[in-house]
């Protein structure tokens, strides 16, 4: 039963890779704030000059993946960025990334912890399918415990339903 579920997930991911098109960068909920926070974090990134991770114009500057409510699969709009990170990691074996799953507050704290873990694990799997080694990735969840925005509205919730890619220094 469990094996069956995993293989379905793999098929989904592979299908996603096959259908990848560069034009799929249309705005996802909160993508503008994502770009902002990604740019901010890349500005303080310890990456050395010449490292594409350091280039604010690179797709690698996008460090957050956003989700609809109660969904943990990476959306089409975010797939190119995750793929680019996978490629980067496969070419930079010394780099490690921590995937931090987060949720909006509409669920119990424990359910959201589980959902955030599923979100982070989904990104981890996609990175590994794209060439990153298991040892380069770690997935954790904060559930709803570390909201970026605290209001009880969709604008805040959209920002909080997120997996952040945090590169180790």
């Amino acid at each position, binding site marked *: *039963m*469990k094996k069956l*579920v*995993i293989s379905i997930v793999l098929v989904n991911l592979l299908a996603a890779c096959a259908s990848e098109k560069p034009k799929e960068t249309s705005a996802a909920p909160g993508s503008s704030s994502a770009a902002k926070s990604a740019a901010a974090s890349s500005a303080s990134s310890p990456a050395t000059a010449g490292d594409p991770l350091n280039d604010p114009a690179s797709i690698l500057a996008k460090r957050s993946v956003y989700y609809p409510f*109660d969904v943990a699969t990476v959306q089409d709009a975010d797939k190119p960025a995750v793929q680019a990170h996978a490629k980067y990691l496969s070419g930079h074996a010394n780099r490690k990334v921590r995937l931090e799953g987060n949720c909006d*507050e*509409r*669920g*119990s*704290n*424990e*359910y959201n*912890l*589980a*959902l*955030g*873990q*599923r979100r982070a*694990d989904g990104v981890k799997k996609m990175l590994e399918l794209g060439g990153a080694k298991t040892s380069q990735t*770690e*997935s*954790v*969840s*904060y*559930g709803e*415990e*570390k909201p970026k925005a605290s209001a*009880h509205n969709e604008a805040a919730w959209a920002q909080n339903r997120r997996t952040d890619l945090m590169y180790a220094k």
Partner: protein
Amino acid sequence: MLLGILRGVIGLLLLAQASVAGAALSIEIIGAGEHQIPVSIVPFGGDQKLAKIINEVVTGDLQRSGLFRLVDPAGKSPHELAEVNYPDWQVRGVDALAIGSIAALPNNRVEARFRLLDVVKQTELVGQAVSASDGQVRAIGHRIADWIYEKLTGDKGVFSSRIAYVNRQGQKFRLIVADSDGYNEQVVLASNEPIMSPAWSPDGSHLAYVSFETGHAVIYVQSLYTNQRMSVADFRGSNSAPAWSPDGKQLAIVLTRDGSSQIYLMRPDGNGIRRISFSGAIDTEPNFSPDGQHLLFTSDRGGSAQIYRMSVDGGPEQRMTFGDGNNFSPRHSPDGNGFVFAHLNNGKFYVATQDFQTGQMSILTEGGWEKKPSFAPNGKIILFASEARGRGILATVSSDGRVKQHMFTQSGDAREPVWGPNF
């Protein structure tokens, strides 16, 4: 004044406000029980400073239960049995009368004498003398309130029990244990990372909880007597949602070490781990039945979060909640006949209960951000996390939905409350 209002509108919904000056928190009571028992609490004799505390605790406890109508003694102040003139109280329509005195003893101890009298039958219902250290004056008050509650309602009192919750202030998290009225806060753990899911051991000696202090969710078990603790589940991913078995010999926990969030059992020292759910979906928030034979839990195996039940030996799982919305955080009632849970519908959380026999769901609150309900040990009151004036607060509702109270802590947000056992 409050008593006047109470007398005037019995049976109607009313709003009473009882805030205690200089306290760590303020309490608002909304509503009243259907049949309030008229009782008069005579301020204790003896040391007046101590007597004031006792009176405050006893009247506060009884008022918050919603089951009593406190009748003003109106100047009469018997402290000994011989000083009681029953007709004085019969004319006031009082069913029961509480009298007593408290004295400070040498060596930092206090002694209280207390009697509860049946005014109609003119008999003594309770006669007790208690001695305790002078730091335990409020505890004596709670004990007296428990005696009154138990004698007059037939149910066990819960005022002497304790609660645990998490206080969040900015990025500071504190795991707190406090008296049932929120006083006597004791900080169990302070951290700059989130703390969640506190769970009382059945004997009240330990808390299991989840802390993110090492960068991910890890389960700890900590003694409330020695403050010593150990990490009992620290696998990759998330280790969460600890729940004690009624005999205290097992913890049900949720791990992601084998993939998705699944339920496992282990001993409270972290040994003997075995997996008992195999859904591949999210299975979380396990809660043992009082007989230790079943677990209620939250799962999204059907496509969205609902409550399920399974045997502790693993399977067969049975879905318990249906209908609109999602359901989370199930906890058995102490009598095992039903459960309380958080019901999410149209963007609002409600506290709801469901009976196993009838499958009937009852919504007890008006809705808002109401999460993590847990029963008091006598099953008569439900504690939950709510929100008011933009802050996370503790709130209670009687299990019949009639009486509600809001408890405001001094600062920060109160989250993840759980009512401890009577012990």
